[in-house]
Protein backbone atom coordinates (compact mmCIF):
# COMPACT_ATOMS: atom_id res chain seq x y z
CA UNK A 1 0.00 0.00 0.00
CA UNK A 2 1.70 3.16 -1.17
CA UNK A 3 0.22 6.07 0.66
CA UNK A 4 -0.14 9.04 -1.61
CA UNK A 5 0.34 12.42 -0.06
CA UNK A 6 -3.22 13.66 -0.53
CA UNK A 7 -4.63 10.42 0.87
CA UNK A 8 -2.44 10.92 3.90
CA UNK A 9 -3.71 14.49 4.33
CA UNK A 10 -7.34 13.46 4.01
CA UNK A 11 -6.95 10.79 6.66
CA UNK A 12 -5.03 13.17 8.93
CA UNK A 13 -7.68 15.86 8.47
CA UNK A 14 -10.53 13.49 9.24
CA UNK A 15 -8.77 12.28 12.38
CA UNK A 16 -8.26 15.87 13.52
CA UNK A 17 -11.90 16.70 12.82
CA UNK A 18 -12.99 13.63 14.73
CA UNK A 19 -11.18 14.89 17.79
CA UNK A 20 -11.75 18.61 17.37
CA UNK A 21 -15.47 18.57 16.69
CA UNK A 22 -16.49 16.52 19.75
CA UNK A 23 -14.13 18.54 21.91
CA UNK A 24 -15.50 21.92 20.85
CA UNK A 25 -19.01 20.53 20.98
CA UNK A 26 -18.32 19.48 24.57
CA UNK A 27 -17.10 22.99 25.40
CA UNK A 28 -19.96 24.77 23.70
CA UNK A 29 -22.92 22.70 24.69
CA UNK A 30 -24.14 21.89 28.16
CA UNK A 31 -25.96 18.78 26.98
CA UNK A 32 -22.86 17.07 25.67
CA UNK A 33 -20.73 15.20 28.09
CA UNK A 34 -17.08 15.26 27.06
CA UNK A 35 -14.23 13.63 28.86
CA UNK A 36 -11.10 12.16 27.24
CA UNK A 37 -11.54 8.54 28.47
CA UNK A 38 -15.17 8.62 27.37
CA UNK A 39 -14.16 10.07 24.00
CA UNK A 40 -11.68 7.27 23.43
CA UNK A 41 -14.19 4.70 24.54
CA UNK A 42 -16.63 5.91 21.92
CA UNK A 43 -13.91 6.22 19.28
CA UNK A 44 -12.54 2.74 19.88
CA UNK A 45 -16.03 1.25 19.96
CA UNK A 46 -16.66 2.97 16.65
CA UNK A 47 -13.42 1.77 15.10
CA UNK A 48 -14.18 -1.78 16.10
CA UNK A 49 -17.67 -1.69 14.66
CA UNK A 50 -16.06 -0.16 11.57
CA UNK A 51 -13.98 -3.31 11.25
CA UNK A 52 -17.23 -5.20 10.91
CA UNK A 53 -18.29 -2.96 8.05
CA UNK A 54 -14.93 -3.52 6.44
CA UNK A 55 -15.45 -7.26 6.52
CA UNK A 56 -18.53 -6.92 4.38
CA UNK A 57 -16.96 -4.30 2.13
CA UNK A 58 -14.03 -6.62 1.52
CA UNK A 59 -16.22 -9.13 -0.26
CA UNK A 60 -17.43 -6.43 -2.62
CA UNK A 61 -13.91 -5.23 -3.33
CA UNK A 62 -12.74 -8.73 -4.26
CA UNK A 63 -15.37 -9.26 -6.90
CA UNK A 64 -15.14 -5.70 -8.13
CA UNK A 65 -11.40 -6.02 -8.56
CA UNK A 66 -11.66 -9.20 -10.52
CA UNK A 67 -14.63 -8.46 -12.72
CA UNK A 68 -15.30 -4.74 -12.48
CA UNK A 69 -18.78 -5.55 -11.23
CA UNK A 70 -20.50 -4.40 -8.09
CA UNK A 71 -21.67 -7.67 -6.61
CA UNK A 72 -25.11 -6.92 -5.27
CA UNK A 73 -25.30 -10.46 -3.91
CA UNK A 74 -22.52 -10.04 -1.34
CA UNK A 75 -25.00 -9.33 1.48
CA UNK A 76 -27.06 -12.34 0.48
CA UNK A 77 -23.90 -14.45 0.52
CA UNK A 78 -23.16 -13.30 4.07
CA UNK A 79 -26.66 -14.34 5.10
CA UNK A 80 -26.47 -17.60 3.20
CA UNK A 81 -23.11 -18.53 4.72
CA UNK A 82 -24.28 -17.72 8.24
CA UNK A 83 -27.55 -19.63 7.77
CA UNK A 84 -25.73 -22.66 6.42
CA UNK A 85 -23.24 -22.60 9.27
CA UNK A 86 -25.90 -22.36 11.97
CA UNK A 87 -28.10 -24.88 10.18
CA UNK A 88 -25.32 -27.45 9.99
CA UNK A 89 -24.38 -26.76 13.56
CA UNK A 90 -27.96 -27.35 14.68
CA UNK A 91 -27.98 -30.62 12.79
CA UNK A 92 -25.36 -31.77 15.22
CA UNK A 93 -22.05 -31.03 13.51
CA UNK A 94 -19.48 -29.56 15.87
CA UNK A 95 -18.67 -25.93 15.10
CA UNK A 96 -15.28 -26.51 13.47
CA UNK A 97 -16.72 -29.18 11.19
CA UNK A 98 -19.66 -26.96 10.36
CA UNK A 99 -17.25 -24.17 9.37
CA UNK A 100 -15.34 -26.48 7.05
CA UNK A 101 -18.56 -27.81 5.56
CA UNK A 102 -19.80 -24.26 4.99
CA UNK A 103 -16.54 -23.39 3.25
CA UNK A 104 -17.14 -26.28 0.89
CA UNK A 105 -20.72 -25.14 0.32
CA UNK A 106 -19.46 -21.64 -0.56
CA UNK A 107 -16.96 -23.14 -2.99
CA UNK A 108 -19.67 -25.19 -4.68
CA UNK A 109 -21.85 -22.09 -4.78
CA UNK A 110 -19.05 -20.18 -6.53
CA UNK A 111 -18.72 -22.90 -9.13
CA UNK A 112 -22.46 -22.99 -9.68
CA UNK A 113 -22.65 -19.22 -10.10
CA UNK A 114 -19.85 -19.31 -12.67
CA UNK A 115 -21.40 -22.20 -14.56
CA UNK A 116 -24.99 -21.03 -14.59
CA UNK A 117 -24.75 -17.25 -14.62
CA UNK A 118 -21.35 -15.84 -15.50
CA UNK A 119 -20.16 -18.15 -18.25
CA UNK A 120 -22.83 -17.03 -20.65
CA UNK A 121 -22.20 -13.37 -19.84
CA UNK A 122 -18.53 -13.15 -20.80
CA UNK A 123 -17.67 -9.84 -22.38
CA UNK A 124 -21.08 -8.31 -21.73
CA UNK A 125 -21.54 -4.82 -20.37
CA UNK A 126 -20.85 -4.44 -16.67
CA UNK A 127 -24.40 -3.34 -16.06
CA UNK A 128 -25.63 -6.70 -17.34
CA UNK A 129 -23.39 -8.56 -14.92
CA UNK A 130 -24.61 -6.24 -12.20
CA UNK A 131 -28.21 -7.13 -12.98
CA UNK A 132 -27.25 -10.79 -12.84
CA UNK A 133 -25.86 -10.31 -9.33
CA UNK A 134 -29.18 -8.78 -8.26
CA UNK A 135 -30.79 -11.99 -9.46
CA UNK A 136 -28.27 -14.06 -7.54
CA UNK A 137 -28.97 -11.98 -4.43
CA UNK A 138 -32.72 -12.67 -4.50
CA UNK A 139 -32.14 -16.31 -5.25
CA UNK A 140 -29.74 -16.74 -2.33
CA UNK A 141 -32.01 -14.87 0.08
CA UNK A 142 -34.89 -17.15 -0.77
CA UNK A 143 -32.92 -20.36 -1.16
CA UNK A 144 -31.13 -20.02 2.18
CA UNK A 145 -34.30 -19.32 4.08
CA UNK A 146 -36.20 -22.09 2.32
CA UNK A 147 -33.65 -24.64 3.41
CA UNK A 148 -32.78 -23.38 6.87
CA UNK A 149 -35.92 -21.49 7.87
CA UNK A 150 -36.43 -17.80 8.40
CA UNK A 151 -36.56 -17.47 12.20
CA UNK A 152 -33.78 -15.65 14.01
CA UNK A 153 -31.06 -18.05 15.04
CA UNK A 154 -28.43 -17.77 17.66
CA UNK A 155 -24.80 -18.22 16.70
CA UNK A 156 -22.63 -18.74 19.74
CA UNK A 157 -18.89 -19.03 19.26
CA UNK A 158 -18.16 -19.07 22.94
CA UNK A 159 -16.50 -15.64 22.98
CA UNK A 160 -17.62 -13.29 25.69
CA UNK A 161 -19.80 -10.50 24.42
CA UNK A 162 -19.41 -8.54 27.62
CA UNK A 163 -17.22 -5.47 27.69
CA UNK A 164 -14.06 -5.40 29.76
CA UNK A 165 -12.03 -2.52 31.13
CA UNK A 166 -8.74 -1.75 29.42
CA UNK A 167 -6.05 0.88 29.86
CA UNK A 168 -6.02 0.82 33.64
CA UNK A 169 -9.75 0.52 34.04
CA UNK A 170 -10.55 3.70 32.15
CA UNK A 171 -12.02 2.49 28.92
CA UNK A 172 -14.68 -0.14 28.30
CA UNK A 173 -14.09 -2.30 25.26
CA UNK A 174 -16.04 -5.25 23.98
CA UNK A 175 -13.79 -8.31 23.84
CA UNK A 176 -15.67 -9.78 20.93
CA UNK A 177 -15.05 -6.65 18.87
CA UNK A 178 -11.34 -6.97 19.53
CA UNK A 179 -11.32 -10.53 18.28
CA UNK A 180 -13.25 -9.49 15.19
CA UNK A 181 -10.70 -6.76 14.55
CA UNK A 182 -7.79 -9.17 14.75
CA UNK A 183 -9.46 -11.63 12.39
CA UNK A 184 -10.32 -8.91 9.90
CA UNK A 185 -6.77 -7.63 10.08
CA UNK A 186 -5.30 -11.02 9.26
CA UNK A 187 -7.78 -11.53 6.45
CA UNK A 188 -6.87 -8.21 4.89
CA UNK A 189 -3.14 -8.75 5.04
CA UNK A 190 -3.44 -12.18 3.47
CA UNK A 191 -5.73 -10.96 0.71
CA UNK A 192 -3.65 -7.89 -0.06
CA UNK A 193 -0.51 -10.00 -0.41
CA UNK A 194 -2.38 -12.52 -2.53
CA UNK A 195 -3.60 -9.88 -4.96
CA UNK A 196 -0.34 -7.99 -5.18
CA UNK A 197 2.25 -10.71 -5.42
CA UNK A 198 0.86 -14.00 -6.68
CA UNK A 199 0.40 -15.16 -10.23
CA UNK A 200 -3.31 -15.68 -9.70
CA UNK A 201 -3.70 -12.36 -7.92
CA UNK A 202 -2.12 -10.63 -10.91
CA UNK A 203 -4.40 -12.52 -13.25
CA UNK A 204 -7.40 -11.44 -11.19
CA UNK A 205 -6.41 -7.80 -11.55
CA UNK A 206 -5.79 -8.30 -15.25
CA UNK A 207 -9.27 -9.73 -15.74
CA UNK A 208 -10.74 -6.74 -13.93
CA UNK A 209 -9.02 -4.39 -16.36
CA UNK A 210 -9.84 -6.11 -19.61
CA UNK A 211 -11.70 -9.40 -19.99
CA UNK A 212 -10.83 -9.86 -23.61
CA UNK A 213 -7.15 -9.11 -23.29
CA UNK A 214 -7.01 -11.52 -20.36
CA UNK A 215 -8.57 -14.18 -22.55
CA UNK A 216 -6.13 -13.42 -25.33
CA UNK A 217 -3.04 -14.02 -23.18
CA UNK A 218 -4.44 -17.34 -22.05
CA UNK A 219 -5.96 -16.53 -18.67
CA UNK A 220 -8.96 -18.83 -18.36
CA UNK A 221 -11.84 -16.63 -17.22
CA UNK A 222 -13.80 -19.58 -15.86
CA UNK A 223 -11.17 -20.50 -13.29
CA UNK A 224 -10.60 -16.91 -12.34
CA UNK A 225 -14.26 -16.32 -11.66
CA UNK A 226 -14.61 -19.48 -9.62
CA UNK A 227 -11.60 -18.45 -7.56
CA UNK A 228 -12.80 -14.94 -6.95
CA UNK A 229 -16.35 -15.94 -6.05
CA UNK A 230 -15.01 -18.64 -3.76
CA UNK A 231 -12.76 -16.14 -1.99
CA UNK A 232 -15.68 -13.72 -1.74
CA UNK A 233 -17.69 -16.61 -0.31
CA UNK A 234 -15.05 -17.24 2.34
CA UNK A 235 -14.99 -13.57 3.26
CA UNK A 236 -18.80 -13.69 3.40
CA UNK A 237 -18.58 -16.61 5.79
CA UNK A 238 -16.21 -14.73 8.09
CA UNK A 239 -18.46 -11.67 7.98
CA UNK A 240 -21.48 -13.92 8.54
CA UNK A 241 -19.92 -15.50 11.61
CA UNK A 242 -18.98 -12.13 13.08
CA UNK A 243 -22.23 -10.33 12.35
CA UNK A 244 -24.30 -13.42 13.06
CA UNK A 245 -22.91 -13.85 16.54
CA UNK A 246 -23.42 -10.16 17.18
CA UNK A 247 -26.94 -9.68 15.85
CA UNK A 248 -28.20 -13.23 15.51
CA UNK A 249 -28.52 -14.94 12.17
CA UNK A 250 -31.52 -13.44 10.45
CA UNK A 251 -32.65 -11.78 7.26
CA UNK A 252 -31.35 -8.35 8.27
CA UNK A 253 -27.81 -9.67 7.74
CA UNK A 254 -28.37 -9.33 4.03
CA UNK A 255 -29.05 -5.64 4.54
CA UNK A 256 -25.71 -4.84 6.15
CA UNK A 257 -24.50 -4.85 2.59
CA UNK A 258 -26.03 -1.41 2.36
CA UNK A 259 -23.68 -0.24 5.09
CA UNK A 260 -20.76 -1.48 3.01
CA UNK A 261 -21.63 0.87 0.19
CA UNK A 262 -20.46 4.12 1.83
CA UNK A 263 -17.39 2.28 3.08
CA UNK A 264 -16.56 1.36 -0.49
CA UNK A 265 -17.11 4.86 -1.80
CA UNK A 266 -14.85 6.20 0.90
CA UNK A 267 -12.10 3.63 0.55
CA UNK A 268 -12.33 3.01 -3.17
CA UNK A 269 -13.98 0.06 -4.86
CA UNK A 270 -10.73 -1.51 -5.94
CA UNK A 271 -8.64 -1.32 -2.82
CA UNK A 272 -8.45 -3.90 -0.06
CA UNK A 273 -6.69 -1.56 2.39
CA UNK A 274 -9.24 1.05 1.30
CA UNK A 275 -12.08 -1.16 2.48
CA UNK A 276 -10.48 -1.36 5.89
CA UNK A 277 -9.64 2.31 6.29
CA UNK A 278 -13.02 3.30 4.87
CA UNK A 279 -14.71 1.03 7.38
CA UNK A 280 -12.69 2.43 10.27
CA UNK A 281 -13.38 6.05 9.32
CA UNK A 282 -17.07 5.44 8.91
CA UNK A 283 -17.38 3.31 12.05
CA UNK A 284 -15.60 5.83 14.25
CA UNK A 285 -17.17 8.80 12.48
CA UNK A 286 -20.74 7.70 12.93
CA UNK A 287 -20.35 6.74 16.58
CA UNK A 288 -18.60 10.00 17.45
CA UNK A 289 -21.16 12.01 15.54
CA UNK A 290 -23.99 10.20 17.30
CA UNK A 291 -22.60 10.80 20.76
CA UNK A 292 -21.10 14.25 20.44
CA UNK A 293 -23.00 16.05 17.72
CA UNK A 294 -26.42 14.43 17.62
CA UNK A 295 -27.65 15.89 20.95
CA UNK A 296 -27.34 19.39 19.49
CA UNK A 297 -29.63 18.70 16.57
CA UNK A 298 -31.95 16.24 18.18
CA UNK A 299 -30.22 12.92 17.57
CA UNK A 300 -30.34 10.22 14.95
CA UNK A 301 -27.17 11.02 13.05
CA UNK A 302 -25.79 7.49 13.08
CA UNK A 303 -28.19 6.23 10.45
CA UNK A 304 -27.35 8.68 7.74
CA UNK A 305 -23.88 9.94 8.65
CA UNK A 306 -22.07 7.34 6.55
CA UNK A 307 -24.11 8.16 3.46
CA UNK A 308 -23.49 11.90 3.85
CA UNK A 309 -19.79 11.24 4.07
CA UNK A 310 -19.94 9.07 0.97
CA UNK A 311 -21.80 11.77 -0.89
CA UNK A 312 -19.11 14.30 -0.03
CA UNK A 313 -16.48 11.89 -1.31
CA UNK A 314 -18.31 11.34 -4.56
CA UNK A 315 -18.10 15.06 -5.20
CA UNK A 316 -14.45 15.57 -4.38
CA UNK A 317 -12.75 12.22 -4.86
CA UNK A 318 -14.94 9.86 -6.83
CA UNK A 319 -12.37 7.07 -6.89
CA UNK A 320 -12.27 6.99 -3.10
CA UNK A 321 -9.19 7.19 -0.92
CA UNK A 322 -7.28 4.31 -2.44
CA UNK A 323 -9.27 3.50 -5.52
CA UNK A 324 -7.63 3.17 -8.88
CA UNK A 325 -7.73 6.39 -10.77
CA UNK A 326 -9.82 6.27 -13.87
CA UNK A 327 -7.11 6.44 -16.48
CA UNK A 328 -8.01 8.39 -19.52
CA UNK A 329 -5.43 9.16 -22.17
CA UNK A 330 -5.91 12.32 -24.13
Amino acid at each position, binding site marked *: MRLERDVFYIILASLLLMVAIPWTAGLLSEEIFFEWPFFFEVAIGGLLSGVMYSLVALGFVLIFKASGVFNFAQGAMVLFAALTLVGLNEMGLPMWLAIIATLIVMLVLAMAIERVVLRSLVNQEHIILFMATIGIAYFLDGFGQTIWGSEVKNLDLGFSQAPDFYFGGLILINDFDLIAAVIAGILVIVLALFFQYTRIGRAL*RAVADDHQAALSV*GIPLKHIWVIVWAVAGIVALVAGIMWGSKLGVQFSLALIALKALPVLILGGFTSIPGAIIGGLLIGAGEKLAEVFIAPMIGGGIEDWFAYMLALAFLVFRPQGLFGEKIIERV
Partner: protein
Amino acid sequence: MTDNAHAFLEVNNIEVIYDHVILVLKGVSLEVPKGGIVALLGANGAGKSTTLKAISNLLGAERGDVTKGNILYKGEAVESLNPSDLVKRGVIQVMEGRHCFEHLTIEENLLTGAYTRRDGRKAIAQSLELIYDYFPRLRERRSSQAGYTSGGEQQMCAIGRAMLAQPEMILLDEPSMGLAPQLVEEIFEIVKKLNQNEGVSFLLAEQNTNVALRYSDYGYIMENGRVVMEGNAKELGENEDVKEFYLGLSTEGRKSFRDVKNYRRRKRWLA
Protein backbone atom coordinates in the same frame (compact mmCIF):
# COMPACT_ATOMS: atom_id res chain seq x y z
CA MET B 1 2.90 -21.46 -51.25
CA THR B 2 4.28 -24.96 -51.20
CA ASP B 3 1.93 -27.77 -50.38
CA ASN B 4 4.03 -30.21 -48.44
CA ALA B 5 1.50 -32.12 -46.32
CA HIS B 6 0.41 -29.49 -43.80
CA ALA B 7 1.48 -25.94 -43.38
CA PHE B 8 2.29 -24.66 -39.88
CA LEU B 9 -1.03 -22.87 -39.69
CA GLU B 10 -3.70 -23.64 -42.20
CA VAL B 11 -7.08 -21.97 -42.49
CA ASN B 12 -9.42 -23.77 -44.87
CA ASN B 13 -12.41 -22.02 -46.30
CA ILE B 14 -13.82 -20.70 -43.05
CA GLU B 15 -17.11 -18.90 -42.76
CA VAL B 16 -17.82 -16.74 -39.72
CA ILE B 17 -21.22 -15.56 -38.61
CA TYR B 18 -21.79 -13.04 -35.84
CA ASP B 19 -24.93 -13.21 -33.72
CA HIS B 20 -26.27 -16.01 -35.94
CA VAL B 21 -27.12 -13.57 -38.72
CA ILE B 22 -24.23 -11.42 -39.84
CA LEU B 23 -22.02 -13.21 -42.33
CA VAL B 24 -18.57 -11.71 -42.01
CA LEU B 25 -16.17 -14.20 -43.57
CA LYS B 26 -17.32 -15.90 -46.72
CA GLY B 27 -14.81 -18.65 -47.16
CA VAL B 28 -11.32 -17.55 -46.22
CA SER B 29 -8.32 -19.78 -46.76
CA LEU B 30 -4.75 -19.03 -45.92
CA GLU B 31 -1.52 -20.63 -44.82
CA VAL B 32 1.37 -19.56 -42.67
CA PRO B 33 4.63 -21.50 -43.03
CA LYS B 34 6.84 -22.16 -40.03
CA GLY B 35 9.07 -19.20 -39.36
CA GLY B 36 7.24 -16.99 -41.85
CA ILE B 37 5.73 -13.54 -41.64
CA VAL B 38 2.46 -13.40 -43.49
CA ALA B 39 0.49 -10.20 -43.97
CA LEU B 40 -3.26 -10.03 -44.13
CA LEU B 41 -4.16 -6.80 -45.89
CA GLY B 42 -7.35 -4.97 -46.61
CA ALA B 43 -9.50 -2.01 -45.75
CA ASN B 44 -11.69 -1.51 -42.70
CA GLY B 45 -14.32 -4.20 -42.38
CA ALA B 46 -12.64 -6.54 -44.83
CA GLY B 47 -12.55 -9.26 -42.17
CA LYS B 48 -8.90 -9.26 -41.15
CA SER B 49 -9.50 -9.05 -37.43
CA THR B 50 -12.30 -11.57 -37.61
CA THR B 51 -9.97 -14.00 -39.35
CA LEU B 52 -7.39 -13.61 -36.59
CA LYS B 53 -9.98 -13.99 -33.87
CA ALA B 54 -11.38 -17.06 -35.56
CA ILE B 55 -7.92 -18.60 -35.36
CA SER B 56 -7.27 -17.60 -31.75
CA ASN B 57 -10.81 -18.58 -30.72
CA LEU B 58 -11.57 -15.19 -29.24
CA LEU B 59 -14.68 -15.01 -31.42
CA GLY B 60 -16.78 -16.84 -28.88
CA ALA B 61 -16.57 -13.89 -26.51
CA GLU B 62 -18.00 -11.67 -29.24
CA ARG B 63 -20.82 -14.00 -30.18
CA GLY B 64 -19.20 -15.01 -33.41
CA ASP B 65 -19.09 -18.56 -34.72
CA VAL B 66 -17.00 -20.42 -37.24
CA THR B 67 -19.79 -22.17 -39.12
CA LYS B 68 -17.87 -23.75 -41.99
CA GLY B 69 -14.36 -24.77 -42.80
CA ASN B 70 -11.57 -25.74 -40.45
CA ILE B 71 -8.39 -24.41 -38.90
CA LEU B 72 -5.35 -26.63 -38.56
CA TYR B 73 -2.33 -25.81 -36.44
CA LYS B 74 0.56 -28.22 -36.94
CA GLY B 75 -1.94 -30.48 -38.65
CA GLU B 76 -4.36 -30.59 -35.73
CA ALA B 77 -7.82 -29.06 -35.71
CA VAL B 78 -7.97 -26.21 -33.20
CA GLU B 79 -11.40 -24.65 -33.75
CA SER B 80 -12.89 -26.19 -30.63
CA LEU B 81 -10.09 -25.27 -28.21
CA ASN B 82 -10.50 -22.35 -25.85
CA PRO B 83 -8.03 -19.45 -26.10
CA SER B 84 -6.14 -20.59 -23.03
CA ASP B 85 -5.43 -24.05 -24.44
CA LEU B 86 -4.37 -22.51 -27.72
CA VAL B 87 -1.91 -20.24 -25.91
CA LYS B 88 -0.48 -23.32 -24.21
CA ARG B 89 0.01 -24.87 -27.64
CA GLY B 90 1.84 -21.80 -28.83
CA VAL B 91 -0.63 -19.59 -30.68
CA ILE B 92 -1.33 -16.20 -29.14
CA GLN B 93 -3.06 -13.10 -30.39
CA VAL B 94 -2.05 -9.49 -29.86
CA MET B 95 -5.32 -7.68 -30.16
CA GLU B 96 -6.08 -4.59 -32.14
CA GLY B 97 -5.80 -1.48 -30.03
CA ARG B 98 -3.18 -2.99 -27.73
CA HIS B 99 -5.48 -3.84 -24.81
CA CYS B 100 -2.86 -3.51 -22.11
CA PHE B 101 -4.06 -3.92 -18.54
CA GLU B 102 -4.06 -0.24 -17.70
CA HIS B 103 -3.90 -0.47 -13.93
CA LEU B 104 -1.10 -3.01 -13.92
CA THR B 105 2.49 -1.91 -14.29
CA ILE B 106 4.34 -2.68 -17.51
CA GLU B 107 6.20 -5.48 -15.78
CA GLU B 108 3.00 -6.96 -14.35
CA ASN B 109 1.46 -6.75 -17.80
CA LEU B 110 4.36 -8.69 -19.25
CA LEU B 111 4.11 -11.28 -16.49
CA THR B 112 0.43 -11.94 -17.17
CA GLY B 113 1.62 -13.28 -20.52
CA ALA B 114 3.40 -16.04 -18.64
CA TYR B 115 0.20 -17.18 -16.95
CA THR B 116 -0.02 -20.44 -18.84
CA ARG B 117 3.64 -21.34 -18.31
CA ARG B 118 4.63 -23.98 -15.81
CA ASP B 119 8.40 -23.79 -16.03
CA GLY B 120 9.08 -21.85 -12.87
CA ARG B 121 9.98 -18.35 -11.79
CA LYS B 122 13.56 -18.50 -12.96
CA ALA B 123 12.70 -19.28 -16.57
CA ILE B 124 10.06 -16.57 -16.57
CA ALA B 125 12.52 -14.03 -15.17
CA GLN B 126 14.90 -14.95 -17.98
CA SER B 127 12.23 -14.41 -20.63
CA LEU B 128 11.42 -11.10 -19.02
CA GLU B 129 15.03 -9.99 -19.39
CA LEU B 130 15.00 -11.14 -23.00
CA ILE B 131 11.94 -9.02 -23.72
CA TYR B 132 13.57 -6.03 -22.03
CA ASP B 133 16.52 -6.51 -24.34
CA TYR B 134 14.26 -6.36 -27.37
CA PHE B 135 12.29 -3.42 -25.97
CA PRO B 136 14.71 -1.33 -23.89
CA ARG B 137 12.01 1.28 -23.53
CA LEU B 138 9.87 -1.13 -21.56
CA ARG B 139 12.70 -1.69 -19.13
CA GLU B 140 12.77 2.02 -18.40
CA ARG B 141 9.06 2.10 -17.78
CA ARG B 142 8.71 -1.24 -16.06
CA SER B 143 7.12 0.14 -12.92
CA SER B 144 4.74 2.68 -14.44
CA GLN B 145 1.11 1.83 -14.88
CA ALA B 146 0.47 0.79 -18.45
CA GLY B 147 -2.46 3.17 -18.78
CA TYR B 148 -0.08 6.10 -18.44
CA THR B 149 2.40 4.99 -21.07
CA SER B 150 2.39 6.12 -24.69
CA GLY B 151 0.68 4.29 -27.52
CA GLY B 152 3.98 2.97 -28.84
CA GLU B 153 5.02 1.70 -25.44
CA GLN B 154 1.64 0.02 -25.05
CA GLN B 155 2.05 -1.71 -28.41
CA MET B 156 5.48 -2.91 -27.35
CA CYS B 157 4.03 -4.03 -24.04
CA ALA B 158 1.30 -5.99 -25.83
CA ILE B 159 3.81 -7.73 -28.10
CA GLY B 160 6.19 -8.38 -25.21
CA ARG B 161 3.33 -9.77 -23.15
CA ALA B 162 2.50 -12.21 -25.92
CA MET B 163 6.18 -13.17 -26.24
CA LEU B 164 6.28 -14.14 -22.57
CA ALA B 165 3.93 -17.00 -23.33
CA GLN B 166 6.78 -18.38 -25.48
CA PRO B 167 4.59 -18.70 -28.54
CA GLU B 168 5.52 -20.23 -31.86
CA MET B 169 2.93 -18.21 -33.68
CA ILE B 170 1.73 -14.67 -32.97
CA LEU B 171 -1.41 -13.26 -34.53
CA LEU B 172 -0.67 -9.57 -34.62
CA ASP B 173 -3.65 -7.34 -35.24
CA GLU B 174 -2.99 -3.88 -36.63
CA PRO B 175 0.25 -3.05 -34.80
CA SER B 176 0.55 0.28 -36.59
CA MET B 177 -2.77 1.63 -35.35
CA GLY B 178 -2.49 5.21 -34.21
CA LEU B 179 1.30 5.27 -34.18
CA ALA B 180 3.74 7.69 -35.76
CA PRO B 181 5.45 6.35 -38.91
CA GLN B 182 8.81 6.18 -37.19
CA LEU B 183 7.39 4.10 -34.35
CA VAL B 184 5.65 1.82 -36.84
CA GLU B 185 9.02 1.12 -38.44
CA GLU B 186 10.57 0.51 -35.04
CA ILE B 187 7.88 -1.99 -34.11
CA PHE B 188 8.07 -3.84 -37.43
CA GLU B 189 11.85 -3.96 -37.05
CA ILE B 190 11.41 -5.72 -33.72
CA VAL B 191 8.81 -8.07 -35.17
CA LYS B 192 11.31 -9.00 -37.85
CA LYS B 193 14.00 -9.57 -35.23
CA LEU B 194 11.72 -11.71 -33.09
CA ASN B 195 10.92 -13.70 -36.20
CA GLN B 196 14.55 -14.23 -37.12
CA ASN B 197 16.11 -14.71 -33.69
CA GLU B 198 13.33 -16.41 -31.75
CA GLY B 199 11.79 -18.29 -34.66
CA VAL B 200 8.28 -16.98 -34.03
CA SER B 201 5.93 -17.04 -37.01
CA PHE B 202 3.68 -14.05 -37.51
CA LEU B 203 0.33 -13.58 -39.12
CA LEU B 204 -0.30 -9.87 -39.12
CA ALA B 205 -3.35 -7.95 -40.09
CA GLU B 206 -2.52 -4.50 -41.38
CA GLN B 207 -4.04 -1.56 -43.16
CA ASN B 208 -0.65 -0.05 -43.69
CA THR B 209 0.03 -2.09 -46.82
CA ASN B 210 3.33 -0.46 -47.58
CA VAL B 211 5.08 -1.29 -44.31
CA ALA B 212 3.43 -4.68 -43.99
CA LEU B 213 4.57 -5.84 -47.42
CA ARG B 214 8.10 -4.65 -46.79
CA TYR B 215 8.47 -6.74 -43.67
CA SER B 216 6.56 -9.87 -44.64
CA ASP B 217 7.28 -12.78 -46.97
CA TYR B 218 3.81 -13.43 -48.23
CA GLY B 219 0.57 -11.53 -48.36
CA TYR B 220 -3.16 -12.00 -48.68
CA ILE B 221 -5.50 -9.21 -49.65
CA MET B 222 -9.01 -9.35 -48.26
CA GLU B 223 -12.13 -7.56 -49.36
CA ASN B 224 -15.64 -8.04 -48.04
CA GLY B 225 -14.85 -11.22 -46.17
CA ARG B 226 -12.97 -12.92 -48.99
CA VAL B 227 -9.38 -13.28 -50.00
CA VAL B 228 -9.18 -11.58 -53.39
CA MET B 229 -5.50 -11.88 -54.04
CA GLU B 230 -2.41 -13.52 -52.65
CA GLY B 231 1.23 -13.80 -53.51
CA ASN B 232 4.79 -13.18 -52.44
CA ALA B 233 5.12 -9.87 -50.69
CA LYS B 234 7.44 -8.64 -53.39
CA GLU B 235 5.12 -9.57 -56.26
CA LEU B 236 2.16 -8.06 -54.47
CA GLY B 237 4.08 -4.86 -53.97
CA GLU B 238 4.75 -4.68 -57.68
CA ASN B 239 1.24 -5.54 -58.78
CA GLU B 240 -0.37 -2.61 -60.60
CA ASP B 241 -3.74 -2.93 -58.86
CA VAL B 242 -2.24 -3.27 -55.41
CA LYS B 243 -0.06 -0.28 -56.12
CA GLU B 244 -2.98 1.76 -57.18
CA PHE B 245 -5.64 0.81 -54.65
CA TYR B 246 -3.53 0.01 -51.60
CA LEU B 247 -0.30 1.85 -51.97
CA GLY B 248 -1.67 4.95 -53.67
CA LEU B 249 0.89 4.75 -56.47
CA SER B 250 0.35 4.55 -60.17
CA THR B 251 2.68 4.16 -63.09
CA GLU B 252 0.61 6.55 -65.14
CA GLY B 253 0.81 9.31 -62.59
CA ARG B 254 -2.08 10.64 -60.55
CA LYS B 255 -5.46 9.82 -61.94
CA SER B 256 -8.98 10.93 -61.33
CA PHE B 257 -11.73 8.53 -60.37
CA ARG B 258 -13.64 9.92 -63.30
CA ASP B 259 -11.25 8.08 -65.54
CA VAL B 260 -13.46 5.43 -67.15
CA LYS B 261 -10.85 2.78 -67.72
CA ASN B 262 -9.69 3.05 -64.15
CA TYR B 263 -13.26 2.92 -62.93
CA ARG B 264 -13.88 -0.36 -64.70
CA ARG B 265 -10.83 -1.92 -63.19
CA ARG B 266 -11.79 -0.63 -59.79
CA LYS B 267 -15.24 -2.08 -60.16
CA ARG B 268 -13.79 -5.50 -60.64
CA TRP B 269 -11.95 -5.06 -57.36
CA LEU B 270 -14.92 -3.99 -55.36
CA ALA B 271 -17.36 -6.54 -56.73
